[in-house]
């Protein structure tokens, strides 16, 4: 818990999110037959993993774009 020292709100949000994820995974588990189109969708909690990965890809692309020189000062075109 040391890494969350002074970041109690973040810690609380993470705990609640994980709790919701477990709850959703349990509900998903109760589904008799999942109607899916791709095989990967059969992985338990697949969309949680996808959501996490996708969000990180977006964050990664934005960081790369900033470093690649897209980020400029306001008066760039003046």
């Amino acid at each position: 818990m040391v890494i969350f020292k002074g970041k109690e709100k973040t810690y609380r949000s993470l705990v609640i999110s994980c709790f919701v994820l477990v709850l959703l995974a349990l509900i998903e588990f109760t589904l008799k037959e999942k109607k899916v189109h791709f095989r990967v969708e059969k992985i338990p909690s697949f969309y949680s993993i996808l959501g996490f990965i996708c969000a990180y890809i977006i964050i990664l692309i934005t960081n790369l774009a900033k470093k690649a020189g897209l980020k400029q000062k306001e008066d760039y075109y003046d």
Partner: protein
Amino acid sequence: MISLIPPYLIFFLSAFLLIILTKRVGQFFLILVPILSFLHFFYIDCHSLNIHFLGEKLNILYKDEFNLPFFYVFTIIALIGNIYNLHCDNKKEKIFPLLYAGSSLGVILSGDFLSLFFFWELMAVFSTFIIWLSSNEESKKAGLRYLMIHLLGGFFLLTGIILLYEETGSFTFKTLSSDNYYSYLILIGFMINAAVIPFSAWLPDSYPQTTLGGSVFLSAYTTKSAVYVLLRFFPGWDILAVLGSIMAVYGVVYAFMVLDMRRLLSYHIISQVGFMVVGVGLGTNLSINGAISHALTNIINKGLLLMSVGAIVFATGKERLNELGGLISSMRNVFVFYMIGALSISGFPLLLGFVSKSITITASQEEHNTFCWFMLNLASTGTFISVALKLPYLAFFTKAKDNIKLSSIPTNMKVAMVLASLICVLVGIYPKVLYRILPYKVFYEPYTMEHIIFVLQLFVGAFIAFILYLERLDVKNYYIYLDTDWFYRKTTNILLRSFYFLNDGYNRLVNEVFYKKLLFWGIWFSKNPLLAIKIIFDVMLYLLGFKKEEKELKNIIEKYPLDLVRHWPIGTTILYVTFFLLFYLLLYYLV
């Protein structure tokens, strides 16, 4: 007789009437116009209205299952937008949106290419006037860039239409095939308005520059009418599925970077139009239904978001997220409206976006198009973290800034937001209202247990990633992010600068050589031409190494022009004149 009046004409006539009406009557009129137009459209029982123009039969009113849903939502957003604008004292802020909405209705109700082109250009002109409503330097420049890009699009479209007419001999609508080269010209014209990459930078460049109400109108019409024409003429074009997928992600990447609230939402428009373009590109009945339903729901969702953000800007006078914070205590109702729009556009269950967004994603799954499916999920996640998490977190939940003074929001703005929120919730709960007006009768049930769970899992996964990144979110300073407009903004800048440089250089050259140096040497030479020639000759010989007496040469140059009379007696001059006359005489007789 009244049935011969197309609905868009009501908008145009009303706009002119507004000029002479008083503010109070004008306000009543603004609410009445979209309702009247909506009801009038039902009154018209004919599905087509023709006029003759330059020997051609033009279809100025065309009604079918494709344009009908667009007509409904275009008039609904016109009503909501007009209510949002009611408090404005500047009549132009009410007139130009009416004209713009009217020309957009003209685009979707046109039944031939020539009428469509006419309204297309009207739309470009009136939307430019809306951008110029802000009357500041930035909006003037952005409006001009917007107009240039749209006129370029119009040029492509017109060229394509002329070539089509040359081949078919008619302006009648038909699905365009990839075998004809004019189809590509028409496609580029439509793609520019739909902000399909690489023609997308005009949108975030211009939309944030207009008035608060102007943004609501702009977000609804130009891109969605372009989606309508893409749906009508280019269904099943694979390239559109690829470009749509890319623009869906591109829009959210930029939305996640920028700190200007309306620019963030403008980038997000590109992302959402990406979903629609994918639907067009896939070309199945389900995907086309998905594209249309998403266009319709997006107009309401985006309108609500821009109205909520407009309310924040109106109350605080600030647009940038790094200057805002802690608004949750003072603007709780705006927060609720904003979150309804944000969660709806993200595709949260029981809201409008949920019932439309998933149709296109399901269509991509059914086509086993993994690329589109992944990119659309990436864009959905990006939407959630940029629109539903980043913006509200920075505006409402960060530390309150001391220098923010809040002014109260007019009632009409709140009424408009309530109306849009109600549509979001009611149609979200009962989606059959939406599905009933779609062109293809395809069974689609959004409220299945696995669909709800999958969507919630996606959001919670993205939420965790956002929470972990939150500490590193850079909001201290405001930056701009370069887009494809760099190519024409920077290159024209460089071209202009080089033109000025060349022009300046030429002027300097003329000034230095002709007016200063040449004149100086001319005067110097005329003081003693013969000695001057001798000096020049001697200098040349010296430089070539034939003459060594440097001292003597310097002495002559220093003493120049000497005494003309003493050095060159009159006899010598006469001798030269005699030689010259002799030469002239010989020349006269010989030639």
